């Protein structure tokens, strides 16, 4: 008998304490985060998760916040099939109001239909494929980081500004390389200062480029633009030298890696490259972000896109604070984001939910390092690229 009384008393006590807690506590609101937490790119996923978590913690510590937030974290493994499952799981949970989602382009593009179907507002924090925002016009999908379009705009702008007139394009024939070719060609044509004298599609594992490069040599371009990844970038740059081609080698984010410099040694000097995002410490709110991040003593650094994950989550929380925990209202409110301050700079979503003022970093290889163009001796005039005036 006593046991029953005791249990009843315990239950009553628990019930009372809950009631007491909720009475003066804020309403709980769930938000979501998806990224690659396991597998080859998991460092980026973990950095993003920590950064989003930081945004939630800072908000919960803020006495002025109307709600108490809880972040649900799911792992897309950078695999499209897994991503669709976890996206469905998250979107189907009506308690979760919005999510900061995906680092990998392949997973982000695979899940946009799911989010649309469930009416689940997301802000993509890392993937760069333009189609994620531009293939459909889904009100649910937004992105805080730039796309390869922005990167190529910056590329074309720099080439034109430096006074180069003729460009030969080499791109690999995957979606990635073809995308680069398309957006670079468009951007260059829009500026109208330089012409493309020839476009060459190559396979992503090609060894020998001497035939293409001989043809290019006869065309005598000022610049060779390359849309593709490091391994063939190294081969093309090296074979350019063999054939005595003096043009500027102008790459994309695909070659921004130490492997490019190791593979070429001194030949890498003067290579141009462009990448979405900026080194975190160079972002407008970079110092604030890093200080707060370090204070939390996470196991991993935020990595290149952590600040974007923070900005995405922070924007979700701002929006919920403003319109309340209601998916439809959140979507409507995210449609009005214009010149919004964030740690990654101003954010403006266009009609596709794409941030139109993203940060692009221009790089040039100087003394075996990718140096920011504006800080380099090339921009300062101390050194000159081939044909630079």
């Amino acid at each position, binding site marked *: 008998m006593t046991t029953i009384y005791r249990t009843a008393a315990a239950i009553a006590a628990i019930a009372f304490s809950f009631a007491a807690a909720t009475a003066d506590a804020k309403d709980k609101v769930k938000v979501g985060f998806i990224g690659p937490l396991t597998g080859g790119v998991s460092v980026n996923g973990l950095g993003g998760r920590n950064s989003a978590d930081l945004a939630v913690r800072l908000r919960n510590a803020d006495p002025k916040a109307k709600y108490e937030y809880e972040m649900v974290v799911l792992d897309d493994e950078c695999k499209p099939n897994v991503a669709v499952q976890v996206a469905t799981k998250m979107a189907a949970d009506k308690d979760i109001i919005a999510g900061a989602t995906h680092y990998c382009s392949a997973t982000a593009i695979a899940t946009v239909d799911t989010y649309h179907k469930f009416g689940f507002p997301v802000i993509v924090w890392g993937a760069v494929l333009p189609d994620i925002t531009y293939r459909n016009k889904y009100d649910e999908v937004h992105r805080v980081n730039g796309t390869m379009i922005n990167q190529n705009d910056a590329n074309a702008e720099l080439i034109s500004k430096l006074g180069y007139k003729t460009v030969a394009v080499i791109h690999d024939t995957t979606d990635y390389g073809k995308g680069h070719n398309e957006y670079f060609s468009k951007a260059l044509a829009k500026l109208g200062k330089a012409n493309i004298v020839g476009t060459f599609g*190559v396979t992503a594992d090609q060894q020998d480029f001497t035939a293409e490069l001989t043809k290019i040599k006869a065309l005598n371009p000022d610049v060779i633009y390359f849309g593709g990844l490091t391994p063939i970038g190294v081969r093309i740059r090296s074979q350019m030298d063999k054939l005595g081609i003096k043009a500027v080698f102008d790459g994309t984010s695909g070659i921004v890696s130490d492997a490019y410099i*190791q593979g070429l040694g001194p030949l890498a000097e003067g290579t141009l490259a462009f990448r979405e995002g900026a080194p975190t410490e160079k972002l407008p709110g970079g110092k604030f972000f890093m200080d707060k991040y370090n204070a939390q003593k996470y196991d991993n650094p935020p990595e290149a896109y952590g600040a974007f994950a923070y900005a995405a989550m922070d924007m979700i929380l701002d929006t919920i604070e403003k319109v309340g925990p209601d998916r439809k209202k959140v979507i409507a409110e995210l449609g009005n984001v214009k010149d919004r301050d964030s740690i990654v700079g101003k954010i403006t979503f266009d009609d596709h939910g794409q941030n139109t003022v993203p940060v692009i970093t221009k790089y040039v290889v100087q003394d075996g390092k990718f140096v920011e163009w504006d800080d380099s001796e090339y921009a300062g005039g101390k050194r000159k690229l081939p044909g630079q005036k």
Partner: protein
Amino acid sequence: MAGLVPAVHVLTAGVKTWMPGPMPARRGEVSNMDAGVFAQYVMNGLMLGMMYALVAVGFTLFFGVLDVIKFSHGDVLTVGAFTALAAYAGLRALGINSSWFELVVMLVLAVFAMAFLGMAIARYLVMPLRSAPALNTLLITLMLGTVLRECVRLFYPQGANPKPFPALLPRASLDLGEFNLRLDNVLMLFAGGLVIVGLQYVLNRTKLGLAIRAVAQDEETARTMGINFTAIVLITFAIGSGLAAFAGVMNGLYYNEINFGIGLYLGVIGFSAAIIGGLGSIYGAILGGFLFAGLQIVGTVLLPFASAYKDVFSFAVVIAIMAWRPTGLIREKISERV
């Protein structure tokens, strides 16, 4: 199996019929092309063709003595190139700076190491499977190729990244307008030619060559004549794999970059070249190698659409040739189809 008997009259007949493929046909169409540019294409084609031919000769040798297709051949080339690179790193660590000495040591090490690897593959993987269906050999060597490739990727320091290969040959070059004639290319072509001529000599003029040809022609009879079959097979695999190592070093010197994947592609092309030339025929393999290089260059230069299709074009032509001449351009005297 009458393949390895290289009859010169067959070659000349073949050349009359076949060489016009890439070159003269092109000349009319590109009358506006600068002579320098044309010379550059020819030079590129010769370099490519030489590497393809060296790989193709290996395929043809193995097929000659054992009637097997050894698909790990391309990856033996990769391992050879990486052996040379490791040797270079070792020599540098010892403080040796003479490029000629380095080159010789690298070549010798790579060639002998691969000759040994080739013998080991023949002894422990290919020969035990002689009585099994040919498909088994093909599969097992295909898998071995993957193992070799992955080992380079995983165990060579930072093996997944492209590696710079030292330029050890004199870098002098003659700038003739659009044509950049490089001394190192000329030296490599010359060395490659020398290797092929040397191989010819061994096969046609020495007792060893006679034994290899005898085994290729008829194993049973060769055995009854007192030829040590196993030894001849092992030596043939050693020669073929040594050639692959030579081609691997040449590949490195030519592109100044190697990576774990070079052998895969070169293997497929070398195999195709050996097939169009006529498996089992040395001349056929050489012809096939140069023909394939020619096709790729024609594909890049002359086809109006982007160069992305050059492999589609080259392999389509290979398919057409196969359909037309199933035993290759240089036919075996007795076609063996059982």
